[in-house]
């Protein structure tokens, strides 16, 4: 007769359990544990590039673009430390240098300059980056891009939806009045 425990998942076997995570609001290093590697080395990455600053010149009020938001799984194969850099306003890239641990380096690009719109190729090259709202005096303001899960939101123009003062580590663009964008962010999640 089998024991009930024979049917429960073992640690690292998938299903059940509470994920471990590490968050980076400033640059640092992530060191995979041997238990993580023994469990398959799979980690979930959430990378956010920094947002761009907004501008307010003589004819336009434009929000900065939000930083790129990347969510993906990668597999590490050894316990070498990984350098993590968190992008700074305005528009710094956030990186996860996983090649040191047997995977591929990952980069979330920073937000593009204020004034570009959603048709701009610079936005199209960024995953989940919210474009900054744009307005010329006398015009209706365009809406800002929504970003992903509250991260990478575009900066707002005058009378427009979007961020005003971007929160730190949000990856959001700054509002039109030359407000600073938000810095980047990294969250690593895994089971072991």
């Amino acid at each position: 007769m089998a024991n009930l425990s024979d049917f429960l998942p073992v640690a690292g076997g998938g299903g059940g359990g509470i994920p471990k995570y590490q968050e980076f609001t400033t640059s640092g290093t992530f060191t995979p544990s041997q238990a993580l590697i023994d469990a398959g080395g799979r980690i979930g990455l959430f990378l956010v590039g920094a947002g761009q600053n907004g501008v307010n010149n003589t004819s336009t009020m434009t929000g900065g673009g939000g930083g790129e938001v990347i969510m993906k799984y990668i597999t590490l194969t050894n316990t070498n430390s990984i350098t993590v850099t968190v992008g700074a306003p305005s528009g710094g890239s956030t990186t996860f240098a996983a090649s040191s641990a047997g995977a591929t380096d990952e980069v979330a690009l920073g937000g593009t300059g204020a004034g570009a719109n959603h048709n701009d190729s610079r936005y199209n090259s960024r995953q989940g980056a919210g474009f900054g709202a744009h307005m010329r005096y006398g015009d209706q303001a365009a809406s800002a891009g929504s970003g992903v899960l509250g991260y990478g939101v575009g900066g707002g123009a005058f009378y427009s939806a979007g961020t005003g003062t971007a929160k730190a580590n949000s990856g959001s663009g700054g509002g039109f009045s030359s407000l600073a964008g938000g810095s980047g962010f990294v969250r690593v999640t895994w089971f072991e």
Partner: protein
Amino acid sequence: MENRIAIIKDGIVSNVIVASDEFAENIQETTVNVKNIDCEIGYFYDGANFTAPIKTQEEIEVEARAWRDSELKRTDFIVPLTDFPNHASWITYRQELRDWTTTEDFPDTKPTAPAEL
């Protein structure tokens, strides 16, 4: 305010990150604390000062065309309003915008709108 560190490769800022000074010391490339300095990716660094990059002719022309397009869009509503003040001048202005990219004035001298909108 967060501590901003510029990473410099070959005299050009390749990235700006949030990091402690201790972390920056371990980066192989040249790093400079730019917490209170105007510095973005692409800026030049001469060992003492940062300067913004000069735009290429192509970048200037792309921005000029974007401005031209936004002007045409902004004045679209005037076309059917034949009693709009200075209507004929606005129509002329729109034609000048369309022709602008093929003239010697492009991209340095913009067509002038008849009035403020």
